[in-house]
């Protein structure tokens, strides 16, 4: 019964996105123009290739299997992506370990994952889902990274042009992108730290363009005998249960690390907290960082310090009776600088 209204909501959301977002992209254009491979290409040409890759991830229909690897884990995912000229539909099935199915229509995601005897259903907003890791507007990326032409290398049996995106400073990691020489689709992406170690890698092991135009596959293969639990991810300002508004004092941000922009701010209910927490999101076009501000809670020892887990940096500090926590897939310097940029009005 719940799946039913989720499907409705999803269908509806997709229709909206189609209205807002998918302004006519000419798919045939993408396929027919081969990616330029001139040696010593000026950076503008590389940006064009990346621009095309950003659009191709949304505007082409394809299916395949890709693997996602970090230092800690590796997952294989089967993807089917379909664009009908107006809207995007994608299904991602995690093939390893616990099965998970991620359905997206436009930017709205529904994730089905079994947990014990139940199926947990989460709704999220989705961006940057592979292979759509590049934003279609590259302006912010251009401000922060320099492109450099690499070799041509095979990925998933297809020739791909390597393009490096090298950071202009040490406040972000560098990226290595493999772009399909024929389709312009991003085939593989790796995030590399300052010591030239790969932090995260995601790439196709098999990919092909999709010809069929039905949506029969756009159905979760969940066990219908199990019951469903909706996981509410509610970054809404108030909840009936909490004391309404967060108790965070007036604050401002001065001296963000260069190239980072504030892209969103919400008050969210965080698991285990009694009052809403202020959540601010920053982006440099590729990397994103979250800042959380909350009053120090009585009886709970506030946290300070830095820590790197996998490719994620954490930084905690205490400032004027507030616990500041910064989390992001960026170097330590960046999370520290964002935490220190917060000041409270006396």
């Amino acid at each position, binding site marked *: *019964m719940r799946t*039913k*209204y989720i499907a*409705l*909501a999803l269908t*509806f*959301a997709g*229709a*909206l996105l189609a209205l807002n977002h998918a302004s006519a992209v000419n798919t045939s254009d993408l396929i027919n123009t081969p990616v330029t491979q001139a040696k010593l290409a000026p950076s503008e040409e590389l940006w064009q290739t990346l621009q095309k890759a950003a659009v191709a991830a949304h505007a082409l229909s394809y299916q395949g299997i890709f693997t*996602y690897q*970090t230092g*800690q*884990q590796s*997952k294989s*995912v089967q993807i089917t992506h379909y664009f009908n000229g107006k809207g995007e539909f994608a299904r*991602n099935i995690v093939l390893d*370990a*616990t099965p998970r199915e*991620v359905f997206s229509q436009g930017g709205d995601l529904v*994730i089905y994952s079994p947990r014990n005897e139940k199926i947990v259903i989460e709704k*999220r*907003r*989705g961006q*940057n*889902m*592979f292979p759509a*890791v590049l934003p279609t507007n590259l302006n912010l990326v251009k401000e922060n990274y320099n492109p450099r032409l690499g070799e041509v290398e095979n990925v998933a049996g297809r020739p791909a042009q390597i393009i490096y995106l090298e950071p202009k400073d040490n406040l972000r990691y560098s990226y290595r992108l493999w772009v399909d020489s024929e389709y312009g689709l991003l085939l593989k992406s790796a995030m590399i730290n300052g010591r030239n170690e790969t932090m995260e890698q*995601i790439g196709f092991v098999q990919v092909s363009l999709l010809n069929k135009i039905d949506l029969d596959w756009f159905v979760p293969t969940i066990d219908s005998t199990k019951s469903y639990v*909706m996981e509410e991810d509610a*970054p*809404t300002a108030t*909840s*009936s*249960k909490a004391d309404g508004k967060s108790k965070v004092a007036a604050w401002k941000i001065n001296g963000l690390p260069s190239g980072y922009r504030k*892209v969103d701010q919400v008050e*969210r209910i*965080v*698991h*285990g*907290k009694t009052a809403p*927490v202020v*959540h601010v*999101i920053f*982006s440099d076009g590729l990397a*994103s960082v*979250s800042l*959380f501000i909350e009053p120090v809670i009585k009886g*709970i*020892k506030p*946290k*300070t*310090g830095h*820590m790197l*887990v996998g490719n*994620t940096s*954490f930084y905690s500090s205490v400032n004027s009776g507030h616990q500041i*926590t910064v*989390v*992001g*897939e960026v170097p330590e310097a960046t999370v520290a600088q964002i935490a220190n940029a917060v000041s409270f009005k006396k």
Partner: protein
Amino acid sequence: MSEQISALIDDEIAAEDAMHIITSMQSQKQAAEAWQYYHLIGDVMRGDAAFSKDFKQNLMKKIDAEATVLSPAAQKASTAVSNPTLIKTKLPAAWSIAASVAAVAVVGLMAFDTHMQNTDIAPIEIAQSIPSEYLLAHRASAPSSGSYYTQPDYVQSVSFSQ
């Protein structure tokens, strides 16, 4: 707002003219919930397959079993229950009442459920661990490409060095 959402569902407002409703549904939880509930109510009223096959029968029996104080027709209904074929012929009129009852019950249940989810947050011990709740929040709203495919559970076991 609720009225406008209802009108949109009933096709009384053209989708092109409804962008403000749609926008508010995207941003306001209340409006989004109204949208879902109205659809659910609609489904129930139309008798869509949201319920099991014998739901109708069971519900009719339950309603018949209830003491109906105000309705003089109650006597008739209780005689009808002994004959299942009679129930079927009587369905159209009775069904809309049953559907309303069901809809109210369902909406009530769902509201109850949401309430339970919000209040049922167990306090967790975070003093010794990395703030995994923040990692989850970060990934939910500013995700890296891999975060959709990985179960976040592992973060709980990693300790936070001070």
